[in-house]
């Protein structure tokens, strides 16, 4: 390990340090009541860490490959880092209002968020299955905790338990997969997997890897935890996990499948196509009649995982480009949608039913507008980022001659419009229920403005981001 190695991993290091600083700050300022102070100090610290990481991420390191070949910070890592940091940053902005209102421990919260982000980034930087495994665990353990953070809420407890037990279950398969791949290939180095002949043992190992990553990404049928956990977890935690888990998992997918196993693409591609189809159908159909918005967004995130998997299942530069673009856009639009929910409160509880949105237009027009915009983007309609992202993925699918996959993708996105627009229309019409009150929060406002602007920017002027991820894709070849 050298300074150069540390330099390569500087974003992760900054985030880690920031997390530790948050914890220390929290310990320093917490009084005898063990309640966090109502100030936003921890949040600002976390935000500063994220900002610094963004800055560092902008500069490519001198030597991309570090830590004895186990770690790589190439353009792909940069793109993944960007998505992760974008998600983390917006989450940090969204959280203070909620944490204060529900008296959740801010220090722990921010530290966990930052740690989780580190895990996701690490998955994107993995050049070795061991690192990938570590990244996965660093990503998911904080999420388990975040899900259960509202210790007094039975729903939160339940979410934590379900997430933890199923997560551990899924991780076990993943590790077993790592072991079998190791046994078949004799190495954990992803860059050396390419030349390994495809044996059944390797195949089973890869299949088990798929399960672990698929669990994290909430691909059907490994998704069952997601709706319950999303619904039960505290809102900002839900928002965060919906994004960061996807970033990590798909970074892992990219590292394992198109990059490490290009020769076997015929085999795994077919399997992933099937998974993607099942996921898109399952997620979208189950979301149709949800009345709880968090749950609806949970199914929606499942469906989106299916879409993103298209980019993996259709190997090639177009697919990778699509996945990376999608991750960034997804982070922005999903957090925008959750952000509006954070503003709502029903008698000291979350107001997370669709019906609670009624009349939002009259009370908080801009929030309602952003919600509608994000819904439109989630539905994949122009002129939003969601459309361009889907366009790239569909292109990848057709280029790889996966016509059926493309067909299912477009048709299920039609189905998805049904529930997304229902939400948007609910926010823009009707009269507000008395019990629900919108809260004001400057940071949430900033986050929503960012999300709204991002959704439009990525939709109307996609060239900047496209060029950025395009570089990532080209650098890999």
């Amino acid at each position: 390990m050298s300074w150069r190695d540390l330099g390569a991993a500087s974003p992760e290091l900054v985030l880690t340090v920031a997390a530790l600083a948050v914890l220390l700050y929290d310990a320093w300022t917490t009084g005898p009541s063990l309640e966090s102070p109502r100030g936003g100090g921890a949040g600002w610290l976390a935000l500063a860490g994220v900002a610094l990481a963004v800055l560092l991420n902008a500069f490519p390191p001198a030597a991309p490959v570090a830590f004895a070949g186990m770690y790589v910070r190439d353009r792909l890592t940069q793109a993944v880092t960007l998505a992760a940091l974008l998600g983390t940053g917006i989450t940090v902005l969204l959280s203070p209002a909620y944490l204060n209102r529900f008296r959740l421990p801010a220090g722990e919260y921010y530290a966990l968020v930052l740690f989780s982000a580190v895990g996701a980034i690490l998955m994107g930087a993995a050049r070795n299955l061991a690192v990938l495994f570590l990244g996965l665990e660093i990503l998911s353990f904080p999420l388990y905790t975040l899900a259960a953070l509202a210790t007094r809420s039975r729903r939160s407890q339940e979410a934590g338990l379900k997430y933890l037990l199923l997560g551990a279950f899924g991780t076990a398969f993943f590790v077993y997969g790592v072991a079998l791949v190791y046994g078949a290939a004799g190495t954990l180095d992803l860059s050396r997997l390419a030349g390994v002949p495809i044996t059944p043992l390797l195949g089973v190992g890869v299949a088990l890897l798929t399960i672990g990553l698929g669990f994290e990404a909430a691909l059907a049928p490994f998704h069952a935890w997601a709706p319950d956990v999303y619904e039960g977890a505290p809102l900002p935690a839900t928002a965060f996990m919906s994004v960061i888990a996807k970033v990590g998992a798909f970074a892992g997918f990219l590292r394992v499948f198109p990059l490490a196993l290009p020769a076997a693409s015929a085999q795994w591609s077919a399997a992933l196509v099937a998974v993607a189809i099942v996921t898109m159908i399952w997620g979208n159909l189950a979301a149709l009649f949800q009345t709880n918005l968090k749950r609806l967004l949970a199914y929606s995130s499942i469906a989106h995982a299916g879409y993103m998997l298209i980019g993996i299942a259709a190997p090639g530069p177009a697919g990778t480009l699509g996945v990376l673009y999608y991750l960034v856009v997804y982070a922005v639009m999903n957090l925008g949608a959750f952000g509006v929910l954070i503003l709502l409160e029903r008698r000291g509880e979350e107001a997370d039913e669709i019906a609670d949105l009624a009349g939002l237009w009259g009370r908080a027009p801009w929030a309602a507008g952003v919600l509608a915009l994000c819904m439109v983007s989630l539905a994949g309609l122009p002129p939003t980022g969601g459309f361009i992202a889907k366009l790239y993925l569909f292109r990848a699918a057709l280029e790889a001659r996966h016509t059926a996959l493309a067909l299912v993708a477009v048709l299920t996105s039609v189905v998805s419009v049904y529930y997304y627009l229902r939400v948007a229309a609910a926010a823009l019409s009707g009269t507000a229920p008395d019990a629900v009150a919108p809260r004001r929060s400057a940071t949430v406002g900033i986050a929503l403005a960012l999300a709204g602007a991002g959704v439009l920017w990525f939709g109307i002027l996609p060239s900047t981001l496209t060029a950025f991820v395009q570089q990532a894709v080209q650098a890999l070849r």
Partner: protein
Amino acid sequence: MPAPLYLSLSAVLFALGTVGVLVRRSALIVFMSVELMLNAVNLTFVTFARLRGGVDGQVLVFFVLVVAAAEVVIGLAIIVNIFRARETVDVDDVDLLRG
């Protein structure tokens, strides 16, 4: 004992763990079943490390152990918290969230 037997043993252990997750209702025992699965994986790692003659696998065992330990920490915290609220750790009673 030849390698395939070790591998088979670990596979059986892994399967036992899987079945345990599926059939046991106590959260604690489900948890222990997962630990069993992880340890089965460890056995696989060690076997392959020995077969392949590298140390990667053996190093990874430590990683897995640490991870398992961390998992226990978080898990027990959550389970205890649930027990406090509901006086039960039966996973079938935890079904508030569904649909």
